[in-house]
């Protein structure tokens, strides 16, 4: 399997008045054809910025400083705006976190899905409409002919997220980036949306980058997982490697903080990781996780750990394995 997308050494910085915020610092990610890649981490670890960088949606004062984003053999960062525009929405599309605000309130949902076809195809009016209605049915919107004429505010959060999914998939893209698509939804709806995405992923044979802070969701959907902390990848591996044999103390901490369904386990207090994500404008020296790490050694304070290879697919950035 070839790489559909290869992000290499991506650096995205925000130049603010009181300093430079290094939101993404040397992230490398690979996505193969048909693969689901999960990116996990706490809020502020740079996972959304990585996603936005791939689509080149970073707005000033943010800027992509360095790196390559190779999609189907071509560097998106070197592309002309017009070329990139043709790729956005048709070959790479994005599902946003907040279905409440990601749809334009003044247009009907049917119009907004149809617009993607207007931008990227030569289809006639009737054909577009029937494709939209078909897509709305596929994402499980009941009564699509009626929904077609409704405004976003008339739909529930879960239905709006289905509309976003319909917009993202209607051009049959090879890569879909989903930025916390289930975070803003109720738990029961989360489950439905997750199942829907799994079904559609199989049907459309697309690759998916799934960004979330929820380890349970990652396990459910991903083939491979990247764990991010303070703008860097701290561990990567197959979903089995990450969940059965987590190596980085941060990954271990994330897994320990999931409530268990097992009654025996429930008697023990739920663990949490002490402290919070460092201020990205003022990151600790050495390993950025050392102030919160139970196993921190002297070297961690001064020397940044390299990415250590554990197996063909499993890598970890920690001095414990160096």
């Amino acid at each position: 399997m070839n790489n559909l997308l290869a992000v290499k050494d991506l650096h995205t910085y925000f130049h603010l008045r009181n300093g430079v915020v290094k939101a993404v610092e040397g992230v490398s990610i690979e996505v193969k054809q048909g693969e689901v890649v999960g990116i996990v981490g706490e809020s502020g670890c740079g996972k959304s910025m990585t996603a936005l960088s791939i689509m080149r949606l970073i707005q000033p004062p943010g800027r992509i400083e360095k790196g390559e984003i190779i999609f189907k053999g071509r560097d998106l960062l070197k592309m002309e705006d017009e070329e990139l525009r043709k790729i956005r929405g048709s070959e790479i599309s994005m599902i946003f976190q907040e279905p409440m605000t990601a749809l334009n309130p003044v247009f009907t949902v049917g119009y907004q899905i149809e617009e993607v076809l207007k931008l990227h195809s030569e289809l006639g009016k009737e054909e577009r409409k029937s494709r939209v209605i078909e897509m709305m049915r596929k994402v499980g919107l009941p009564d699509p002919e009626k929904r077609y004429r409704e405004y976003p505010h008339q739909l529930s959060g879960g239905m709006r997220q289905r509309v976003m999914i319909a917009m993202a998939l209607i051009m049959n893209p090879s890569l879909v980036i989903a930025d916390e698509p289930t975070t803003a939804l109720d738990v029961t709806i989360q489950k439905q949306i997750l199942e829907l995405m799994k079904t559609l992923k199989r049907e459309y044979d697309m690759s998916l980058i799934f960004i979330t802070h929820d380890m349970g969701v990652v396990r459910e959907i991903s083939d491979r997982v990247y764990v991010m902390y303070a703008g860097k990848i701290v561990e990567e591996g197959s979903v089995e490697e990450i969940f059965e044999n987590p190596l980085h103390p941060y990954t271990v901490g994330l897994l320990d903080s999931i409530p268990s369904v097992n009654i025996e386990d429930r008697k023990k207090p739920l663990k949490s990781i002490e402290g919070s994500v460092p201020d990205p404008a003022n990151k600790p020296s050495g390993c950025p996780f050392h102030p919160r790490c139970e196993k921190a050694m002297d070297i961690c304070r001064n020397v940044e750990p390299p990415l250590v290879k554990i197996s063909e697919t499993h890598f970890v950035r920690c001095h414990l394995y160096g």
Partner: protein
Amino acid sequence: MGSDFVRRFFRDKVAVTGLILVIAVFIVAIFAPYIAPYPPDAIDPSHPLQPPSIHHIMGTDSLGRDVFSRMVYGARVSLLVGFVAVGISTLIGTILGAIAGYYGGWVDTIIMRFVDIMLCFPTFFLILAVIAFLNPGIINIMVVIGLTSWMGVARLVRAEFLKLKSQEFTQAVVAVGARDLRIIFKHILPNAMAPVLVAATLGVAGAVLTESALSFLGLGVQPPTPSWGNILAEGKDNIEIAWWLSFYPGLAILITVLGYNLVGEGIRDAIDPRLKDE
């Protein structure tokens, strides 16, 4: 959004009332020759400053002209000036404000400093100065009012764009591959129109008032062509003995301004379904 918008607008009784006022003034302006009982400039020296009566329902002025007939023709001038001037200022203000707000950076700096420069001039004296060079006349007045009153709209639109461009739906349309012009004018602008429409209705009122003031000073619509402004100006000379010369033009301006305000608010509610249906 077309038919939904119309349906929501007509459900709003206050907005419909405003629309009726506006349409009434429009009908009067369009059918002026059929409504006015006398020619607007027919002088009758034997009946100057007659109070309202069966023959002259709004009385006569100092030259014995029928005030009602002059008011009816004056509606044409006021509406034309109001509409064209606001049309010009809204167009300029919207385009410049949208570009400044969307692109930001040096584009924004240049446009907004230009706005500041324009705002430095006392608008009314700027208009006076320009009109003094050009010939006073209805076309010049419309253009000059339009060219000197777009700055407020530009600021409003820019502020709305600054707010809207960071919202997720803007990012979402960029992410589906829309071009800048489409994003600016099709997706963001309709969301930014509500305050512009309110500003435009007030702008109509403002333009009507500016036209009146210019006419009053003899730099506006030239007699014998009637405008509410120059009837009002004439009324001022005789305000102690002929109240009707001031009262009716004032009432006409009030009704017109009120009508536009109600319509503007109705449009705002109808264009933004969230405000109504929930």
